[in-house]
């Protein structure tokens, strides 16, 4: 009798411990909150593409966000006519890996665009993003054609009541926002929420009608399904264009979250700043567009070697 009990208990314990990875892995053993997936994932130490793979795994895997047959729009920062090492634009490898994974998940098309600040063909080309996207099987769409933008109402906006939004944002099934982590002379930092200024036609309106409020207002209209903040190279000063590579540090970081406010809050802290110090993050949190109180969220932290 005792041996049967011992065997039963032993086999049961063995099965349970072997199955632990299904229940949150080592973290559960360490006493961390047991979660199947996290609210936000942060990765350090790898190259851009690999860090994305690690991060997306932690927040549910790409198939949580992209289903077979869907049209995906990926919106990186391609605003400036600068090479990748200047970190004025998103790292092309990160964008390429995202496109690749979306196609593997069965996306029918993956579109990539930005309403650039400098001349669009130079930005697309010199950022390295155009070639990287094409190689990964995505389609670059021009972003500087006014007729591609349709006017929409933003009834919940306090300052931004209407805007012309790029049709890819309006027509696609999945919206993936991929900003680069950088300093910005107007808003102090340029992250996920600021990156959305590249999907509207008239940015001048934002600048002359309470910039921070407009940035938050846009999120009342539409929020990305997924935000990937590329910090492989981070511009720490003289943003958003940067003056030289002396402004850039090879930070090797990446932050991913479906919550745009949380993603911005985490990335802001990497600048040594508090999210409440940044106008549009505080406003978006007040407007309940997301959560900037990171202690209330479950965060996956991975360090790659």
């Amino acid at each position, binding site marked *: 009798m005792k041996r049967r009990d011992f065997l039963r208990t032993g086999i049961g314990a063995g099965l349970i411990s072997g199955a632990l990875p299904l229940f949150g892995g080592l973290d559960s053993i360490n006493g961390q909150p047991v979660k199947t997936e996290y609210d936000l994932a*942060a990765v*350090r*130490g790898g190259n851009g593409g690999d860090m994305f793979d690690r991060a997306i795994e932690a927040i549910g895997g790409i198939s949580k966000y992209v289903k077979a047959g869907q049209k995906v729009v990926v919106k990186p920062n391609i605003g400036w*006519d600068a090479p990748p090492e200047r970190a004025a634009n998103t790292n092309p490898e990160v964008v390429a890996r995202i496109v690749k994974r979306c196609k593997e998940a069965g996306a029918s098309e993956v579109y990539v665009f930005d309403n650039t*600040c*400098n*001349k669009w*063909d*130079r930005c697309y080309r010199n950022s390295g993003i155009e070639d990287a996207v094409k190689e990964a099987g995505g*389609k*670059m*769409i*021009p972003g*500087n*054609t006014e*007729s*591609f933008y349709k006017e929409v109402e933003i009834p919940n906006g306090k300052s931004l009541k209407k805007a012309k939004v790029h049709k890819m944002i309006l027509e696609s099934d999945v919206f993936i926002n991929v900003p680069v982590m950088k300093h*910005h*002379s*107007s*808003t*102090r930092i340029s992250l996920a929420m600021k990156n959305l200024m590249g999907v509207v036609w008239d*940015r*001048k*309106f934002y*600048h*002359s*009608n*309470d*910039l*921070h*409020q407009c940035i938050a207002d846009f999120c009342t209209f539409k929020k990305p399904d997924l935000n990937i903040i590329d910090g492989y190279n*981070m511009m*720490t*000063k*003289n943003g*958003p*264009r940067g*003056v*030289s*590579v*002396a*402004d*850039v*540090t090879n*930070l090797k970081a990446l932050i991913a979250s479906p919550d745009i406010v949380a993603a911005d*809050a*985490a990335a802001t*802290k*990497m*600048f*040594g700043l508090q999210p409440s*110090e940044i*106008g549009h993050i505080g406003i978006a949190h007040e407007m309940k567009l997301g959560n900037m109180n*990171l202690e209330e969220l479950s*965060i996956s*932290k991975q*360090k790659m070697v």
Partner: protein
Amino acid sequence: MNYKKLKQTRVILSLLFFILTTSLFLDIYEKYANETVHEILFLQFIPSLLQFIQTFAIGTIGFIIVIGLTAFIGRIYCSTICPLGILQDVFAWLAKKRSQARFFYKKKKAYPILRYSLLAITIISLIISFSTIISLLDPYSNFGRFVTYLFRPVVVVLNNGIAMLLNKFEVYSLNPVKLVAAPWFMLIFSILIFLTIAFMSYKRGRLFCNTVCPVGTFLGLISKVSFLKIRFDEDNCTKCGKCIGACKSECIDLKLYTVDHSRCVDCFNCLAVCNDSALKLTSKPPKANTNTSRRNAITTGIALLVGQKLLAESNPSNDTSKLLVNKKEHPVSPPGSISIKRFNEICTGCGLCVAVCPTQVLQPAVGQYGLKGFMQPHMDYVDGGYCNFDCRGCGQICPTGAILPIEIEEKQITQLGKAVFVKENCVVYTDGTDCGACSEHCPTKAVNMIPYEGKLLIPEVDQSICIGCGACEHPCPIDAPYKAIYVNGNAVHQAAEKPKEEEQTSAPVEEDFPF
């Protein structure tokens, strides 16, 4: 010699030069390498002459080669190389085609007083550097203006229309191209000159080339003593008159068996049409039609030009009572022009830099430089754009050397003007909200943001590192002439300091995950 083949060769060469030259101005997808431009424009007379006067470089001897060619065979330049001449041949050909007359042209007399006076005025203008006369009379510059301000907009509108159509089918091989409307005055002026020259050539062939064009008159003097000339073999001549009927310069006299070599443009029409071998190229001592469809075409063309200009003018009105008007003491001349005075003396307003500029910031001036700079390009930071920090295109392609081909390192410290911040106009001051569009775009961060009243940031300009590129003025959301930051042009370009060499930055926070 087979003169029919000679004429054919002339026609093919002329089309080659015409198409290559025109394509430079219509390169809306920026396919041409800037170096190729000089190769194509090498033989254009006045640009080459102007460059030579300044630099005496071997690459500028095109006009000397033309003079040599003329001394050998006559005014072949006018029929093969000069794009305005070839354009006039197109109108003349159209006129001849639609005419029922057996003999289209007639012998007409020359206008020596008119053409030699104009030549004298041109030479004097060259000596005293009064470029306006040269700009107005130079055939290359006139042609350049037609293509840049009249043809190119039509090409862009067509391109944009087709691109939109293709984009609907997700084909992105063509894309819409930005078009900045030229000032009204330029459009009307260009149209008037175009119609005048078109009319002159339609009715009277090469009349412009033989009465107005100083290059034609000058080469005509050399042509009088050229080695090879078109002469009559009087024994063979049957006085059928076909040669006169084909002569675009109206310079063949059958009574005296002479060809006026100062007016002959070596088109070889007469040689090709004569069946009796009475004309030889040798060194020994010869309507009004009312076609409504063409009217429609011209009207549509003008309407397209005017239409795109009208569409560009739609300014919503704001309350500007408390704002200060921008005080611009000088306009801004392109990088490489060295000084406004020097630029005005050399530039002939051909419009090539306007056509080629990737940001379309170069636009023709009407009154900005005064009369001496009429039609010459200036940097239009309000409607045009701003100067791309990494570009030196205008200097590379300028055919007269008015804009010098300075290296990119020099261009990036050439101060075209100084940025001036007007706090009273700035939204940070008037509305208490953040903006910073100016500093965003500044390539040297001469425009920097400093703390202001609580948590706001307001611009501050360090003029010592400002290069006057206009990247601040253009995106400022306040409309002109009340911009909160604008560039005051330097009459003589200065050298800006390089932005301070900064130490390589590092991660702001030590922790891997500061949250």
